[in-house]
């Protein structure tokens, strides 16, 4: 069986083919799928996030790495489900109404999935009502909102208002992110968490569900 470190490398380098092949082999050999995720794939994506922060990695490389992880996760998901593994939590994520930017949001969605969350990604330009409907139908406890334009940030506030109107505010934790977003804005609109990077988003989600902070 291939060295599992190859899984780490292949995600880091955005080599979906190898990531999938190694995962397949490992699962067939009986390796615990959550080990693959927590010890190889997530650390690889965390490193990707770090390199992007330091401008050593560029957007296409981040996308390729996320794609590699996604490919591997597709094999792992059914195995975890068959084992009766419960998701760490349920997240609804999307870019708010009027905004089309999705790179960061997609990265966060991949990372959350890798971290064991069930993620419903509603895409871009999502109106408040759609977020609410999805949260209700999935009985999800976490809402993650992204905006990359100062002009669309108000949609975040409107979405939180919509949550209150639907009587969901107490049941749903809200995290927000995106280049123009700040902790100050998060405090202003009553969001529960803000992060300026994908790793931080995952940490926030884990805090929301009461998981122990990862070493």
């Amino acid at each position, binding site marked *: 069986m291939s060295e599992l470190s190859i899984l780490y490398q292949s995600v880091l380098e955005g080599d979906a083919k190898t990531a999938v092949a190694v995962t397949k082999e490992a699962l067939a050999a009986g390796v615990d799928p959550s080990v693959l995720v927590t010890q190889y794939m997530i650390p690889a994506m965390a490193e990707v996030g770090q390199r992007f922060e330091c401008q050593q990695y*560029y*957007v*296409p490389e981040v*996308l390729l790495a996320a794609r590699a992880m996604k490919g591997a996760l597709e094999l792992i998901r059914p195995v975890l489900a068959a084992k009766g593994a419960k998701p760490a939590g349920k997240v609804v994520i999307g870019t708010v109404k009027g905004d*089309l930017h999705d*790179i960061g949001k997609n990265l966060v969605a991949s990372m959350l999935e890798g971290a064991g969350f069930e993620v419903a990604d509603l*895409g*871009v*330009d999502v109106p408040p009502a759609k977020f609410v409907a999805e949260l209700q139908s999935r009985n999800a406890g976490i809402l993650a909102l992204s905006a990359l*334009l*100062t*002009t669309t*940030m*108000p949609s975040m506030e409107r979405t939180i208002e919509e949550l209150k109107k639907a009587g969901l505010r107490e049941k749903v934790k809200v995290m927000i992110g995106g280049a*123009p977003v700040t902790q100050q804005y998060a405090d202003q609109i009553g969001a529960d968490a803000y992060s300026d990077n994908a790793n931080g988003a995952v940490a926030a989600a884990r805090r929301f569900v009461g998981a122990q902070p990862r070493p």
Partner: protein
Amino acid sequence: MLIIGERINSTRKLIREAVLRRDAEFIKGEAIRQLQAGAHMLDVNGGVPGQEVELLSWLVNVVQDATDVPLCLDSADPEALRKALPLCRKPAMVNSITEEPVRFQSLLPVVKEYRPKLVALCLSAEGPITGLEDRVATAHRLLDRLTAEGVPLDDIYVDPCVFPIGTGTQHGSSVLESVTQIRMRYPGVHTICGVSNVSFGLPVRKLLNEAFLIMLMSRGMDAAIIDPCEEGVMAEVTAAEALRSRDPDCLGYIKAYRKGLLEPRKA
């Protein structure tokens, strides 16, 4: 080639900070710099949440205090536009209208009343379009609808909507080909785009921006929103105009050379 200077955009940190402290001198400086670099029109964006209505008009007044060129009002807010358009001394451009129902319905009356030039951005009711066929189809629908409402074709500038090539390998060729196809269907239609979107997320953005601008010009694009102060870009525009036969006897090129505009400024 109509060059619209993009610098006065409140979504950019430096400009937003100047705008928030109402630093008219700073904004005027940005306007003058862009004009000196060769811009024919200036884009102004007052997009600070909750302040756009006031800011757009403020920007128009400040910029017109220092310069005399037409302005491109970068706003989809009908209230902001209704306040700002009457202040424009020269015929203005509105950037932009799309197919999104609320936006189309709320901007159309403003357009019909004030008759500005109009950027028609290829965003459908369903959201962003990246495929070539969809882009061209959206452009056609928008043009058909706008002209049916009495907007003169000559007032419309179609923007195929540029996405970063870093997020999709086909985004560049899709825009380039859509310009060709849109112009084939509507001979003489103006086309425009915000060029710098193409390079988001990649290193040395200037290279991509300039190469894309030239490629767009070779496809017949006749207007672009760029930073004219970027070293070398206006020289390249001058060269490209001559190369696509829009500079009779290359006199524009020679004139620019004699003004010292074609070579990097010597230290």
